Each structure stands twice: as C-alpha cells, then as structure tokens.
C-alpha cells in the first residue's frame, strides 16, 4: 500500500519543538519499513526544509520518503517573513559584536587613529625645534581644513549609530514578545476563526488567502494523484484534509484544549480559533486513530459525538534513547556513559549559559535531580509539580534539583512564582535541547517525574527514562493506569492535584530508586516487545480495512 502523510502547519511553526514532529519521524520510518515504499509527504512549500531536516536528524533515509509541495518554492512574502524571523532570532541570541562592525573599527583604526598616534609619537620624541614646529603647524592646518567635512560626518555617524542601536532594541523587544506566543497562537496568526472575520486585518486576510491557495493545491494534488492508496493526517488541526476524496484517516492524539478550557481560553484567547478548526476537522472526519481507549471514549465519543465504529485505537510503542549515549569498547561502559552524559550537559552549559551568573560554572558532575521533559502547557501541571518539589526540598530535605525542558520565558506566572519562592537556583530549564542532550538528561536523572493531568496516551517519559536506566514516578490518571499493573501503581503513581502527595512520591522514589528500577524494568521490557514497526503495521492494517470498507467510514 502506498501511503501519503498530509501536513499543513502554518509558517513559523518549529516542527522540531512539537511532539508531533517526533512522531512524524516514527510514522515515516515505520510505514516505509512496513510497506517498502517511499512515503509521500504532502505539505506546504514552507515546510519542505523543516520536514527534510526533521526526518534526516531522526535518521530516516532519503529513500524512505518524498516530499510533495506546491511548485515554485515558497511565496516571496513568506520568504521575507522567514528572513525577518531568522534575523529576530539571531538578535535574540546574539551577544557577540558583528563582523562588519569589527571590520569598520579596524579600518578606522589603521586609517586614522594609527596615523594620528604616529604623529603624536613624533611630536613627543623629536629633539628638533624646526621639525616639531613644522609638523605641528602642518597638522593644525590639515585639521582645520578637513574639519568642515569631518565634523558633520562624525555627527551623522554618531546619530546613525544611535538610531541603529534604537532599532535593534526595538526589534529585540518585538522578538521577545513574539517568542512568547505559544504554538496555537502562532497558528492563529494565519488561520483566524471565521466567527471573528470582521476583526481580521487586511494583512491577515491576505495571509489566509495564501494559506488557502497552498492547501487547495495540496488537496487537488491528492485527489488527482493516482499513485497514493491512502492519506493520513497525524493531527486534527486541518479541516482542509477532509476535502481529499480518497481513503483516509485522521490521527486524534488528544484534545488538550477542551480538557483545560479555562487556561487556554482565558490565558491564550487565540486558541479558540484553533479549537474551531479542530472541531470542524472532527465533524468532517471519516475515520480516526487514537493512542488510547481513554482518548477514544472521553475525547472523541463523549466530547465530539464521534461514532465508536469510526475509531481505531493503536497504542504507542516504547521509546529508546540509549543509542544516543552508548559508549562501546571501554572497560567500564557504565562509567564511560555517565562521563559522556555529564560532558554533554556541561557542553550545553558552556554554549548556552556563558553569561548566566549561577550556571556558567556550575558543575553537573554529581548533581542529583528529578527530570520532567515537557513543554509548559496547562495539562502539564507544572505549578503543582513545583509546589510538590518545594515541599520535598524544604520540608522533607531531599537533596535534588528539578530539571525541566519547557521554555519558562514564555510563562511569566511560573517565572514570577519561582522568583518569589527563590527556587530559580534549584529548578533549571534546559529549553529546546536536541535528542542527545535529552538522552543525557534522562540518564543522569535520579527519577523521571511526570505530573501530567491529561495525555492522549501513555506518556513517553516512562520508556524514554527506562531505556537509559532511570525509573519514573507518574500521575495517577486513566491514560497511565491503563498501562501500569495495580501492584506497581502503588509504588509509582501519585495524585497530581496534591503537592503534598507529589512530595511524598518524590521522597519515596528517591529513597527506593533501585527498587523502582527492579519493579519497572520488566514492564519496560514487555513494552519494548511492541516496536514502532508493530505500530506502523497496525496502522497499515487499519488503513487497509478502511480502504476496503471493512471499517465503517
């Protein structure tokens, strides 16, 4: 069976930051391994490079996929926007002086300053009164002669320099603001809700038009093309997908927006538009795939009234990060792996925290920490985790830091809370790290802690941690309960709404770490028996049933 994957993210979305991005890697590799055919990835022109980068970084061979985009490359307006964003990003991160500025400085130095200095040295060291007088007079006359030209130049130069600095400061401000917009709001910048059409600006309307043209081409292509047997959308963000009149299915990972309506609707008002698009996609969807029964029943059936027969549940496989930090051929591979992982963290520190007053020379050699890799979203329950952590540190005296991977700069509530409680030195954020650093962070952690309130399936953190030898403690939610046997649940699950209980779980986990590893490893081994190839195989089998009309649509 020839499979096509449909992606329609708006420009400006960093796919590497999204869980869906990582899944795309698994889906593409899995579908390819199973079918032996190159997977068609149909996407807007602005996603081509990102998708290619993501897949090649994920180790997916070039032969495993082909990217299909509207012809002619990226629209010029989006190219300009991309250049501007890249420039803003550079401004945000740049701390060093630009090369052009250094060259100009060098030119001014050699052409003017060095000559003036030579002259001064001559005047100060000469023993000839004639020589001194002549040189002095000549210099004075020369200075008076060029002053009418030089002085305005200096004034204009200084003003331009000041203006450039002001513009740069303004752009940094804009850059800081735009960086704080979460993915859903970024999406909304282009795809505004029709109900608010009267509030849409001309530029936004124009962008929506471009987006629609691009996705229309994609849908037309899918409908025209006779080579792809089945189309798959890894999310429900794009109602355009429903216009494809070939056999197809949508993946429904979760619906966090409807689980946390207050946080999203009040704190991120643009999410309503995204929700509207998702709702529309689900309404027009023919067949859905979820990762767990809970999401199928609570999410699709109860919340959106989707017929049970339209839903297939295909659980995830286990994750394995061990290859990122494995060191072969040493006498003590465990020690070598640990050293390598510490080097990775300290390398990250040296690159990203050179000017950080606390972390710039912090040694991670013997640091004990709890680890929660997650973005900062309402369902991730970060504030309760921080509260529980504080109790574990300050009242229960557990000597461990907490490392998170979200971007705290986008959330002033959490940043202020940390500062008010003076926790910014014990809670550290490794934001947007590559998978190898992620593997090192998992490996060196004492415990992986996952306090999530809602997920589409069993959280990946469990298998990611155990793949590098680190056990987990997790929130007691249905998506987790479904996967954890009762006898193990007592040892590792906690009530995510209670900071006191989270603190107790941290104490228990830290004091019984070895026991947790022993108890959790058999489950991990069992989970590992299900590979991503099995997941792909289940998908393909489901696709076949849908195509052949065995499953209702």
């Amino acid at each position, binding site marked *: 069976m020839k499979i096509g994957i449909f992606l329609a993210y708006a420009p400006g979305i960093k796919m590497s930051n999204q869980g869906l991005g990582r899944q795309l890697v698994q889906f593409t590799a899995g579908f390819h391994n199973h079918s032996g055919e190159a997977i068609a990835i149909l996407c807007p022109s602005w996603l081509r490079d990102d998708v290619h980068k993501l897949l090649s970084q994920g180790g997916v061979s070039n032969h495993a996929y082909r990217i299909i985009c509207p012809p002619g490359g990226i629209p010029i307006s989006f190219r300009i926007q991309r250049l501007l964003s890249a420039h803003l990003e550079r401004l945000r991160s740049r701390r060093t002086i630009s090369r052009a500025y250094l060259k100009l400085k060098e030119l001014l130095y050699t052409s003017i300053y060095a000559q003036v200095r030579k002259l001064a040295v001559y005047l100060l060291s000469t023993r000839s009164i004639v020589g001194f007088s002549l040189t002095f007079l000549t210099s004075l006359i020369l200075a008076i002669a060029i002053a009418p030209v030089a002085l305005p130049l200096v004034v204009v130069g200084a003003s331009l320099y000041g203006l450039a600095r002001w513009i740069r400061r303004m752009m940094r401000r804009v850059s800081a603001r735009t960086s704080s917009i979460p993915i859903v709001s970024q999406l909304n910048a282009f795809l505004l809700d029709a109900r608010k059409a009267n509030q849409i600006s001309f530029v936004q309307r124009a962008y929506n038009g471009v987006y629609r043209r691009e996705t229309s081409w994609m849908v037309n292509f899918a409908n025209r093309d006779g080579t792809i047997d089945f189309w798959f959308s890894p999310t429900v963000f794009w109602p355009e997908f429903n216009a494809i009149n070939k056999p197809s299915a949508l993946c429904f990972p979760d619906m966090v927006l409807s689980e946390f309506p207050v946080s999203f609707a009040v704190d991120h008002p643009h999410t309503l538009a995204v929700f509207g698009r998702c709702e529309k996609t689900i309404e027009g969807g023919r067949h859905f795939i979820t990762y767990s029964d809970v999401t199928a029943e609570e999410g699709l059936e109860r919340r959106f009234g989707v017929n049970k027969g339209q839903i297939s549940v295909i659980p995830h496989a286990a994750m394995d990060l061990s290859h990122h930090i494995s060191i072969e051929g040493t006498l003590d591979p465990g020690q070598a792996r640990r050293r390598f992982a510490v080097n990775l963290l300290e390398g990250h520190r040296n690159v990203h925290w050179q000017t950080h*007053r606390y972390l710039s*020379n912090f040694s991670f050699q*013997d640091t004990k920490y709890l680890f929660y890799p997650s973005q900062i979203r309402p369902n991730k329950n970060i504030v309760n985790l921080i509260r529980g952590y504080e109790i574990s540190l*300050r009242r229960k*005296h557990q*000597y461990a830091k907490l490392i998170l991977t979200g971007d705290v700069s986008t959330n002033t509530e959490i940043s202020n809370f940390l500062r008010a409680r003076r926790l910014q030195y*014990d809670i550290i954020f490794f934001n947007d790290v590559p998978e190898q650093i992620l593997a090192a962070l998992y490996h060196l952690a004492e415990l992986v802690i996952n306090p999530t309130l809602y997920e589409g399936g069993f959280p990946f953190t469990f298998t990611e941690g155990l793949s590098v030898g680190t056990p987990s403690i997790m929130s007691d939610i249905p998506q987790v309960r479904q996967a954890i046997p009762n006898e193990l649940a007592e040892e590792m699950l906690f009530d995510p709404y209670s900071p006191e209980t989270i603190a107790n779980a941290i104490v228990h986990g830290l004091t019984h770490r070895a026991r947790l590893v022993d108890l959790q490893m058999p489950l991990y081994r069992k989970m590992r028996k299900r590979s991503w190839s099995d997941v792909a195989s289940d998908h393909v089998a489901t696709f076949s049933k849908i195509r052949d009309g065995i499953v209702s649509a």
Partner: protein
Amino acid sequence: MSQRAAACKRVVVFLPQAYRGGTLDMVKLLAKMLKFGSQLAGRNLDIVFAYPDSPIYSPKDFADLYQLGIKTRPFYWRFVTRAQLADVQKMTGYSTPLKGDRYSIPTDDANNFLDCDFWFVASDRFDEPLAPLRPYCVFAHDYLQRYFPQSLGDYYENGFIQTARNSIAVLANTPHTIEDIVQYVGIDRRKTILVPHLAELEGARDDMSSFVEKGNYFIWTTNAGGHKNQLLTLHALARYYEINRGTLDCHITGVESSLFNPKSTQDSEPRPHIRAVRDYLSERPQLAERIVFHGDLPYQQYLNVISHARFLLHNVVMDNGTLCAVEAAYHRTPVLSSNYPPMRYISQRYGLNATFFDPNDPAELSEKLAWMEANWRAQQELLPDVEHLEKFSWKALAPEFWRQISTIIG
C-alpha cells in the same frame, strides 16, 4: 620556594568578618587544630590567624592562640576588578579562570598574605568573591537560603558561591551541608571534605556537679533570626498550656532573644517576624506570664540556666545544627529538637537520643512538650556520659582534622 617554605608551610586562617562570640571561638579552634594536629604529625605548620582590623579585638582575645605559637595579623578587604586581578595573577604566577567582575583581596598593608603558602578561609560569606591568589579552602557553614528563602530574598549570593567554586576544597562539618555544596553551590563531590564535628566543652567543665536539682521550667534557646520559627513555637506553647495543661515555664535565652519580649523597649521598629511575636504575646497575657526572657546571658550563667532546665527546646526550620544541644546533654538536660538533617546528625554523632518534632506542626510540638514534661527523667537516662562527650574536644579531634586537611595543604 623560600627557605622558610621549604622548612615548614605557612598557612593563614582567615576570619572574614568581624565576629565575636561563638563564631570567633570556632575559627580560633580551626587554627588551633591545624597547629596542634600538624605538630602531632611532625609537621608543625606556621599558622597565622588573620582577623578584621577592628577595635572590637584586643590581644587578650588571642591569648590562647599565642600560647600555641600562632601569630595574628589584622587585615581589611580591598576590592579589585577582574582585569586588575588578572594582572596580579600574572605576576604571582598562580592563575585560575575568572568569571566575576569584582573580587576581594585581603590586605595587610604588607604583601597581602602572599607570604603564606595556603589560605584557610573560615567562612564563605563574601560580598565579592575572594581573589584566588593562593590555593585556598573554604569552610561552609550552611545554605539557609535554600530552605528559608526569606533569609536572602532577591539577593543573589554570588560572593558566597564563587568563593566556594574557586577554592580547591570546600569543608563542612555535617553531611547536610556537604550535600548543599554539591547540589546547590554546584561543586564536584571530590572537592568536598566532611571534617569532624566538634564540641568544645572545656569552659563548661568547671561548673559541673554530679547532681543538679532541676527547676520548674524548660529552656528554649533561640535568637532574633527569622528561621528560628518563633511564632510557630508560640502557637505550640499556647496549645501546651491551654490544651495539654502543661505546667513547666518556658525560659528563653540567646542573642537578641529579649527583642521578643512584648515589654521590650529595644528596637522601636522591629522586623516583621519580631513584631508578630510581640503582638502574639501582647494579645495573650496568660501565655506571656509563663515565659521568662533571659536575653543573651554570660556563658557561665547560661550554663547555670541550662543545667537547671528539665529539657532543652530547639526549634528552627533549618541551620547547621546547634551545639546548645551538646552543652545541655553535658549538663544532664535532655533535648527536644525540630527534625532536620543536621540535628539528626548531631544527635546521632554525640549519642544525644534527642526527641524530634516537625517544625511546621505546632500541634505535634505541643504534644511533644507535654511528653517531655512527663518523660524528661527517662530521657535523661538516655543521655551520653560526660567522658563520651569530651571525646569530641578540639584536642581529641585535631589529628583526624589534620589528616583530612593535610591532603589539600600538601
């Protein structure tokens, strides 16, 4: 290396701030242990005790050091920029990576202690990091701010942290502080040294008698620090008298502890936690009647009050532990302490068999106060004997201390 250095190393022990009382005594003990310990090991270090140039000190304060052949030298701190320090380092030939913008240099108006081979810094409390001009170690007492954030608030203790990170070793006398050095300050564990915890009871011995009749009170040792949990202790005391029908009075002693007396005329604009305690007591005259404020007593009087108490109450959120507990045990007074790692360590090390309570739970404390009132005699039986406690004197522990320190002094 100079002829002097070849013969014996010169080590300076710095008292970084102008402290008196227990802190001065403790730093002097470190100097004495280095001297005595090295002598016993056949090394006989040349020890210099450096103290802040302040009129609060007189030669009498250092008489015990002179007896052991320890020299003293006053100094003051001078601040230099990173660029200046880099220049100094170039000239001394001892250089380390420099991260900060400003550094502190100990200045004696001579050669600024560069005649010493090794610097032993008795505290990490620096506004600006110590300039690394000689290999040095630093003694860290506690990182209270990690557990009681109000102690530093918004202030970032760069001076403390960088002084420790630039050292060749950081010393502490409880495993708890060692953990904080590794986890909070961010230092490799191999750079930390757990030195022996000691209790100097020499001065307490003269007043010892085999039997002391106990008074109708317990002693609460505290001071004006916010981390001493005074208000919660008063909540517990109120419960102890009202609900548990406690009969013992509460005697309070410690530096600035009289500030909590609602009748105190000192400090017309007290800090919020002191104001809260005064207000609490003013609103409860019956409770205030049961409390006796001794203030900061001279040592012998303090020992007298402690020896007549039925038990000692110690309640803090966090610190590096209190020696009052050992002094109390030395005088057959059992200990009721808040439960936190350094006090558990001290209780175990000295065999105090202290009774513990949760410092965040006034109800538990009031129950424990009542329990101690009923069981203090049984608890007294569990106290270690005097001979056992005297094994922790500075002289007894100097060889062990030297063994650990000699590895870094070389």
